[in-house]
């Protein structure tokens, strides 16, 4: 089976998402697809799977022109995708999610016994061990990802498209996924693997060679240069902005103590589920502290709400969940950036003008190089990287002293990522206190001045960062393993 995309184009209001994209996928091959955010990778996938209809160009299956009216048509012809967005029904069981559009029936009713047995077959195929009757909302993110792949397999997919499949997986889980991809390839599937991560792309596909070798090498060199942009070590001399002592929360944190100074980047490293985001939420007043004390600018402080955190204590939180907590997708850029400073923009009787908003936000949009024809552009039409810049601009506009930055570069292309790293470093140099949360150790080592290691809702260790990736990763991983071993021993 061979799938050919020939000069496909697609435009959305104000944005040219795809222009003359051509691609050929063949049975038994894995193709890797790279590109910056906004390069149109997701759009291309959505065209192949019948979600979007191309404005121009052709789609051929084994040399025959095909036109999909809906995803159903694509699935029927053996084309399945694992999309970036979570595409499961939270309250349905694992089995039902996997088999959703072809549930086994007996006398017109769903036959759950058979559905469970059948779903189990696919779970075994990918090596996921969960009860098929579990509701999907109770699974971890990685497990959900695996369920999505099982679902694509259940379609008997001959062409399988994986859009950033490892974005939310740990290294081990990603390895399991790679092994699976190789197995499917051996069974004759044509696979398209979309990723931001160069290591992955190199590991996964030999057809890369006859695809875009030239461009790939270029990307590699570019990356090597950018990795060299490591923030130079600096002794933290600024005043202490926030001091937490013995903080506890309802989420399960115990005895959390640390200080963060102006001009310093304090890293908070931990695996997914270690309790980092939950701690950030408590620090900005979104959740309550159940114990311990905070002191801000040297004075004891209680943060009762996010509003108080921002307006009185000048603390901002850049969420890891861009779409739901970072930006208002339907509103223009200026609206999103000005959101934190409306009080300041308000004139007579609290009114404000679009022109005022534009004037106030324009410098930040320029400073962050948000790529857009105008500030009136809906944020929903921007690429992920540019959305993240908007999210960041909002806090710059608010002139916070302490910015908690949660996973700033998840799902963001290499170039924008390097830019955001550089920017975070610059902000610290300008005197901002930064608490950086990241699960990506290279990012941590490149940016943080000190690294705290969080494990199971406690801070288990802390190190000065000497900028040597090998040494730091040994220390950090050692700390985590030591404490997981302890936990096992106690059990």
């Amino acid at each position, binding site marked *: 089976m061979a799938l050919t995309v020939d000069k496909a184009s697609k435009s959305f209001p104000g944005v040219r998402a795809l222009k003359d994209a051509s691609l050929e996928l063949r049975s038994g091959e894995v193709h890797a697809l790279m590109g910056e955010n906004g390069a149109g990778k997701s759009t291309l996938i959505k065209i192949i*799977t019948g*979600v979007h209809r191309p404005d121009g160009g052709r789609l051929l299956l084994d040399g025959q022109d095909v036109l999909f009216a*809906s*995803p*159903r048509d694509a*699935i*029927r012809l053996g084309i399945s*995708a694992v*999309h970036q*967005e*979570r*595409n*499961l*029904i*939270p*309250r*349905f069981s694992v089995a*039902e999610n996997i088999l*959703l*559009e072809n*549930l086994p*029936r007996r006398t*017109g*009713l*769903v036959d*759950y016994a058979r559905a469970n047995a059948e779903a189990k077959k696919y779970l075994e195929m990918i090596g996921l061990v969960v009860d098929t009757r579990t509701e999907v909302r109770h699974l971890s993110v990685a497990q959900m990802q695996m369920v999505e792949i099982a*679902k694509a397999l259940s379609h008997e997919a001959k062409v399988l498209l994986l859009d950033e499949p490892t974005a939310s997986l740990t290294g081990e889980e990603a390895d399991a996924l790679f092994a699976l991809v190789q197995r499917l390839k051996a069974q004759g599937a044509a696979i398209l693997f979309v990723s931001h991560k160069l290591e992955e792309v190199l590991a996964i596909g030999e057809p890369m060679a006859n695809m875009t070798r030239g461009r790939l090498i270029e990307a590699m060199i570019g990356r090597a240069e950018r990795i060299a942009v490591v923030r130079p070590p600096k002794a933290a001399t600024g005043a202490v902005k926030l001091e937490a002592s013995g903080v506890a929360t309802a989420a399960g944190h115990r005895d959390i103590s640390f200080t963060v100074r102006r001009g310093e980047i304090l890293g908070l490293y931990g695996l997914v589920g270690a309790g980092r985001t939950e701690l950030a939420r408590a620090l900005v007043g979104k959740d309550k502290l159940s114990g311990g004390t905070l002191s801000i600018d040297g004075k004891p402080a209680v943060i009762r709400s996010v509003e108080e955190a921002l307006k009185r204590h000048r603390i901002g939180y850049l969420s890891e969940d861009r779409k739901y907590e970072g930006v208002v997708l339907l509103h223009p850029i200026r609206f999103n950036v000005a959101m934190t400073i409306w009080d300041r923009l308000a004139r007579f009787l609290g009114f404000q003008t679009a022109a005022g908003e534009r004037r106030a936000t324009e410098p930040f949009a320029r400073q962050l190089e948000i790529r857009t024809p105008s500030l009136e552009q809906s944020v929903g039409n921007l690429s992920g990287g540019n959305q993240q810049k908007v999210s960041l601009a909002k806090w710059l506009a608010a002139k916070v002293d302490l910015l908690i930055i949660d996973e700033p570069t998840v799902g963001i292309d290499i170039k924008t990522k390097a830019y955001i790293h550089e920017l975070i470093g610059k902000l610290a140099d300008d005197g901002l206190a930064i608490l950086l949360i990241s699960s990506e150790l290279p990012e941590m080592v490149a940016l943080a001045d000190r690294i705290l290691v969080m494990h199971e809702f406690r801070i288990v260790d802390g190190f000065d960062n000497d900028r040597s990736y090998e040494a730091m990763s040994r220390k950090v991983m050692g700390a985590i393993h030591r404490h997981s071993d302890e936990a096992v021993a106690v059990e």
Partner: protein
Amino acid sequence: MGAFFRLQWSGILVGIIAGGIALALSAPAFLSEFNLFVLLRSICVSLLVAYAQMVMLGVGQMNLSVGALGGLVAVVTGGLMDALGVPTLPAIMIGVAAGGAAGFVNGWLTVRTGINGFIVTLATASAFAGINLGITKAVPFYNLPADFVAFGNGRVGLFPLLLIVPLLVTVVLALFFARAVPGRHMLAVGGNAPAAQLSGVSVPRAIISAHVLSGLLAAVAGVLAVAQLGSAQPTIGSDWLLISFAAPIIGGASLAGGAISIVGTLLAVVLIGLIQNAMVLVKVDPYWVQFLLGALILAAVWFNRYRAIKVGEI
């Protein structure tokens, strides 16, 4: 006890039992056969109205026209029997089919125009009520077949004949949403429409089906209301909106869609019926009944939310 508390409808059941005991002790008339018959008969229409909205919540939409639609079916059915002399069964069948057709109009407009179902049904509610008034000129149809009215008032002991219909519907709906593919598709669309679409589920079909089902249920409610009252009043349905949302939501349905409970809705209707019955028995000033009902429903939903947070559902 913990496992029981985890059930979405546990609080409602406790409320019904506690309320029943309290009423039995404070108002002896409560346990009389006739009062229990009245109580059971009062929940027949409410139950179908609640289901009509529950179906919509399941697919992640709302139907503000349940009352107007049911009222229209009531006068159509009554008019066929009274003015045109159509026999009972054909008249009912035409009436219910008209309800399904009205539901289809709601669904088709929603899907076709892309306008939110909330707005579409807000508009069609006014349109249906207008047709109702146009047909009746606000005058009820009184001349109904005797067997039809007898069915609306008949009973075996304390069991109203009317109750047969909603009980049957309950069983069918429970099976439909638990096991039938179209029912599962509706819940999938309500739970995560883009995901359902990407899995090859037809979202427009699920939405239209839900609207048709909602229309059919509201129509049956309208017909039962006529049988119960013994006349086709143009005002039937005008007070259905509150209970249509209150019961499914007390029963644990999510306004965000995709999560409904048939047992929960059933029990919630019983609880609301009990509250209304209690207010009659303890002679609450009729002018304050509406206020108390609103307050008690709010309390019930609040309690259920508190429970959901406690057991980590939200």
